[in-house]
């Protein structure tokens, strides 16, 4: 196998991995702060992809505008979901919250998928390219401008999220709630608002992933299923609820998949990473990047 092919596969894996990183960061944020294992995360990916297609292809907007539309509308839908669905469940759920919300998000996923099926139908919507048809040569390997933009935009979004969480008042409040929600509440932090904003940020991250992918994966009602389970895989391996580690783990997964397809066959890519996952979980059941004993997230 020549080096150009390996570089090509790594670049392809990097763009794939950045999508996993975006999705799993959103998932980890929601899991770490709200204790919600969100199985409907892929449906926000689907909504983002539909919105992006509609604004890009149907309305003819610039890709940046279509990304902003996908992000902001999904953010609002996320807010509405938390306010209308999760908040009442939080209040009523008590000790059974985690189990309730587990079933609840699974149900939500099915409802979103079937609503999309009724509203937009079972057909596929795609565009040949988002940013342009150009293909760039990097060290002899060819990569489309759309894949490069996935890497670029995802890096910017993740960096912006990191700056937001680290340096803004709201970001510090979110981190405070993640560490100790009761203490944060005593310090005057409005916990319910933090939950709502966090949930919406998580949903918006998935929407960006969906919007960036419409030239590679056409959008249809069930499009979010595979990204969701891959994202779960990333956060389980990196350590449940740890946000920063999802990025290297997502990228690693993407590259393992593409190298697996390159050296073995397309069908082997899933087998290879699942074998690696089993080995990792045997030796580090709490994930690669997490220290300590295995604990339920509700015990932290």
């Amino acid at each position, binding site marked *: 196998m020549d080096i150009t*092919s390996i570089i090509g596969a790594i670049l392809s894996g990097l763009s794939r991995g950045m999508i996993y990183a975006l999705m799993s960061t959103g998932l980890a944020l929601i899991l770490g702060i709200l204790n919600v294992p969100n199985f409907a995360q892929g449906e926000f990916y689907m909504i983002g992809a539909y919105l992006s297609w509609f604004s890009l292809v149907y309305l003819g907007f610039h890709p940046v505008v279509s990304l902003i539309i996908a992000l902001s509308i999904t953010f609002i839908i996320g807010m509405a979901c938390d306010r209308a669905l999760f908040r009442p469940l939080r209040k009523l759920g008590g000790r059974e919250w985690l189990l309730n919300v587990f079933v609840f998000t699974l149900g939500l996923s099915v409802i979103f998928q079937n609503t999309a099926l009724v509203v937009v139908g*079972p057909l596929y919507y795609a565009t*040949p390219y988002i940013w342009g048809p150009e293909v760039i040569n990097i060290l002899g390997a060819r990569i489309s401008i759309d894949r490069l933009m996935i890497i670029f935009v995802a890096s910017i979004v993740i960096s912006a999220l990191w700056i937001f969480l680290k340096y803004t008042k709201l970001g510090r409040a979110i981190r405070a709630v993640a560490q100790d929600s009761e203490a944060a509440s005593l310090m005057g932090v409005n916990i319910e608002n933090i939950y709502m904003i966090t949930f919406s940020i998580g949903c918006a991250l998935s929407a960006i992933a969906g919007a960036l992918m419409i030239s590679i*994966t056409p959008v249809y009602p069930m499009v979010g299923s595979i990204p969701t389970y891959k994202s779960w895989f990333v956060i389980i391996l990196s350590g449940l609820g740890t946000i920063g580690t999802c990025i290297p783990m997502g990228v690693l997964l993407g590259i393992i998949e593409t190298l697996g397809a*390159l050296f073995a*066959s397309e069908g082997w890519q899933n087998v290879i990473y699942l074998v690696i996952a089993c080995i990792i979980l045997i030796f580090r059941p709490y994930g690669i990047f997490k220290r300590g004993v295995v604990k339920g997230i509700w015990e932290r």
Partner: protein
Amino acid sequence: MRGGITKLQAILIAVIVVVAAAVGTYVAFVSVPRAVPRLEVLKIGVQGPMTGPAAYAGRDFMNSYRLKLEEIGGKIMGIPVELIPIDCESDPEKAVRAYERAIMVEGIHVGACGWHSSVHLALMDVWAANKFPHIAHFGAAHTILEKFRSDPEYYKWTVAKWWPVPEKLFVAYVEVIFSAVERGIIKPKTRSISIYVEDTDWGRSAGKTIAAAFEKRGWKVASFDVGAIDETDHVPVLTKVKALNPDVFFGTWTSAIAGTSLVKQIREVGLRAIVIMDGLGWIPQWYEMTGEASDYVIDMIPGYATPEAKEFARKFEEKYGYYPPPSSAGLAYDNAGFAFAVIEEVLRRTGGVWDEEARELVVKIVREERFEYREGILMECYTEDPNDPPDLVVGEGYYIFPVIQYFGGQGRVIWPSAWAEAELVIPPWFED
């Protein structure tokens, strides 16, 4: 005899019983030919992927069936027809459940149509177990014929397989490539072909057929890969294929997302091969997804050549708002015509009754009596091949697909020579 009956009464009772039994027997077996009443509504199960990665085909099937039914006034032999969709979701297991439900719960009388080979293969057992005829399923793979041949009597219920096995049709691709090689249009560099197909019975069957045909001509198979039916990122496999520098690349995908993504990514990785993408044209709006990446791609699909076919395309587009893809909508329209004609013949013979005998008649009419359907818009004649059932007869005057090459979203016929609109054009990057 207090409390008993007299001898006369006993004789009378015996006479009444004997007369009643005789009358009953006559009524049951002689005077009325059937216990089953004439049908009030005929329920036809239309099988296909109504949702999932090949939902476009299911939508086209239902639309074509509805259009054909509307044209015949919604009735067959005066009996109103109800079309019941049977959604397989592109999954054989789900197909079996949906079909059994259609028979047991929805009460369909006969089934027709269908798309995937893997689904066809799985449903053959359902039809056999229920002694239930299914007319004209599109599933094409060789494994279907093998299963049928393993017990032709048990599996007789699949009639008029609507898409022949790949080797009967793919001869055309081989002809196109090797005729171009002989004429010096293609100057092979490695005399090799790379094959990358969906991981289904259809994909594997098609890939093996092409591989065998090229090997027979002295070429080598540089690579043979299979991928998930809904895979959208083919770059790793294509990167490997590019390094092998094959002269010809062959792919076939029934899923809209996988097929169109593959065509785009072939251009993205810069594969310098002549690309055969069997089935790209099955997908509606495929050009909206591939753009100019589909230029120079070779495919094999039927076209609307006759005035009747053009009229169908016009009516379909007017009614449903999109151009009917010939391979799914066009063939399904003929499929509906064939199925309705067979059912009409059965009902004519049974006097509007649908029972076990009617189900047997479906098989008998199509297979033993060699039913011919000549009112189709895409093929001259549809009839089951007596030497190789349940496949249809393939060849000129019967079932034949032209080979086309795409430019700007339009296909130009390049084979057979009698129909050819243009010569095969080699992409400029092939010579680089």
